[in-house]
């Protein structure tokens, strides 16, 4: 049998592996966003982070609003329910409050390909034609994010390519993991398989640990082999208020409430005080949400 993977708490993960200034890719695509990680990053008042995230969502909005982020690469940042504006992100980018992160943008197709190149050990991947789009023309931090090569075949057409992205560390939400670190995901995977593979170091945040035989009954669901995983945090409901296939639905009310609460700086600070600093850890956050809310969102009886 292979080696067991180390377990740590979310607090230890942030304390040990996410120091100020750390570059990290955070997994999730408006589902499976590890919000419990973001909360803990805020609790520990990290600053200067270099964050990569395909779908920004409320996770990035929160980190930016709390002043944790110095650099940010993304495909979009939004609150997908409503849609509510991503107020904190807008305040930061439009008005520099609390700070104006240095940003870089890629389309989702191009970021998928850049991460795929990183995962596959290749220097680049061909991608969506984007020449003369905004992504092509605006480069602030990554002058080489996109390039063009001439095809060696046919009539020598121009081909847009996305440069390999290889984040220093990646932290990903998965539904379940075994003691060896094999991580499994239900539902759509968006760019997840490639994003994981692209990262130099890989940490999983899992809803639960299951017996390894449970994982081995469905080896097709494994999105990352345990041998590539450095550590695991087990944190039920870690993706709330985003959704987790087979475990719980997106919490629409919390998305809306977050949007309403964070429309002002004061409201944002109140939210952090009440929901993050005031809850100590993720079980505390869940206690504040309340068992009835969780029960209404839970799906475990349905897809299991």
């Amino acid at each position, binding site marked *: 049998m292979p080696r067991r993977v180390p377990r740590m708490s979310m607090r230890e993960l942030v304390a040990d592996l996410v120091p100020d200034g750390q570059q990290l890719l955070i997994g999730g*695509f*408006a*589902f499976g966003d590890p919000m419990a990680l973001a909360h803990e990053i805020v609790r520990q008042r990290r600053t200067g982070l270099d964050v990569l995230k395909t*779908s*920004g969502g409320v996770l990035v909005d929160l980190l930016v609003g709390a002043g944790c982020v110095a650099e940010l690469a*993304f*495909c*979009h*940042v*939004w609150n*997908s*329910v*409503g*849609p*509510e504006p*991503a107020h904190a*992100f*807008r305040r930061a*980018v*439009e008005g520099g409050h609390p700070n104006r992160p240095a940003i870089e*943008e*890629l*389309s*989702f*197709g*191009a970021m*998928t390909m850049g991460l*795929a190149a990183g995962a596959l050990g290749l220097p680049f991947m061909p991608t*969506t*034609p*984007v*020449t*003369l*789009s*905004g*992504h092509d*023309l*605006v480069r*602030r931090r990554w002058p080489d994010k996109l390039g*063009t090569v001439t095809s060696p075949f046919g009539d020598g*057409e*121009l*081909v847009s390519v996305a440069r390999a992205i290889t984040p220093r560390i990646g932290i990903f939400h998965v539904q379940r993991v075994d003691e060896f670190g094999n991580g499994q995901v*239900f*539902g*759509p*995977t*968006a*760019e*997840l*398989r*490639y994003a994981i593979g692209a990262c130099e170091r890989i940490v999983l945040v899992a809803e639960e640990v299951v017996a390894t035989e449970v994982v081995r009954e469905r080896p097709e669901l494994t999105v990352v082999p345990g041998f590539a995983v450095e550590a695991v945090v087990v944190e039920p409901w870690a993706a709330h208020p985003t*959704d987790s*296939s087979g475990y719980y*639905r*997106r919490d*629409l*009310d919390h*998305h*809306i409430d977050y949007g309403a609460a964070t429309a002002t700086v004061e409201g944002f600070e109140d939210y952090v005080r009440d929901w993050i600093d005031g809850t100590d850890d993720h079980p505390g956050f869940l206690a504040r949400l309340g068992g009835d809310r969780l029960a209404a969102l839970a799906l475990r009886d349905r897809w299991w």
Partner: protein
Amino acid sequence: MSTVHPFEWFLINAAREFRDGEVTFVGFHWPMVAARIARHLHAPDLVVVYECGIVEDRLTPQLSTSPSDLRAAVGAPMCGGSMDALYSWLGRGRVARTFLEAPIVDRRGNVNTTVVGDYDRPTVRLPGSGGGTELGSLGRGLVLLSTGDRARAYPERVDYVTSPGHLSGPGERERLGYPAGRGPEVLLTPLGRLTFDSREGFVPAALRPGVSWQEARACFRWLREEPGELSELPEPTAEEVAATRHVLREAREMRYRLPADLPA
């Protein structure tokens, strides 16, 4: 039936753009709502694909709030990934029709969902592209949906090309390596249905009854003289209105932000 709200008109006509049985790439927001309306009406066999890799080929129990709201995956026949959706299905041409919301769109169908004003000091920061860039770049049969009824939603040229339309003019896409036969074809707005003309850009093919050429021109400022004959969009049927109101009730339950003056 009661008076049809312009927003209902818009959604009904958006729904009419869907074709039964077609593989259709549906982007965030009103395209999702319109697809659901179409599924209740003339397109029960619609096959919808989303950027995260979901295939949605029948009526889901609940309306999703976004393509990544996994309510869209309930009962899905396939859950793949973004490489499947954006490349194997969209880029490879297995998708027949594509719907993209275009809150700010210019004469040549370039869509801006990124910034208004200067990129580094924007007047308004919008969400960014997600897969919207791919829909503009690669989507076959691309229909743009905009709820805008003012000129500011339709500039001559957008500040930032998030989703490439026909860029600066005819032939530019092809010259730059964009695949042939793609790019926006239809722009549907509350004022009417516009189609793309490679010389003139988007021009009205039919207006909503009661909308004058002057009103259209005040919105789409690149328009020139009034054409000799101008079609009107057909009146909504009772079934269309009923389906639309049904789906709008679902949207309200699912916390969609709806026009304030929409009847409840």
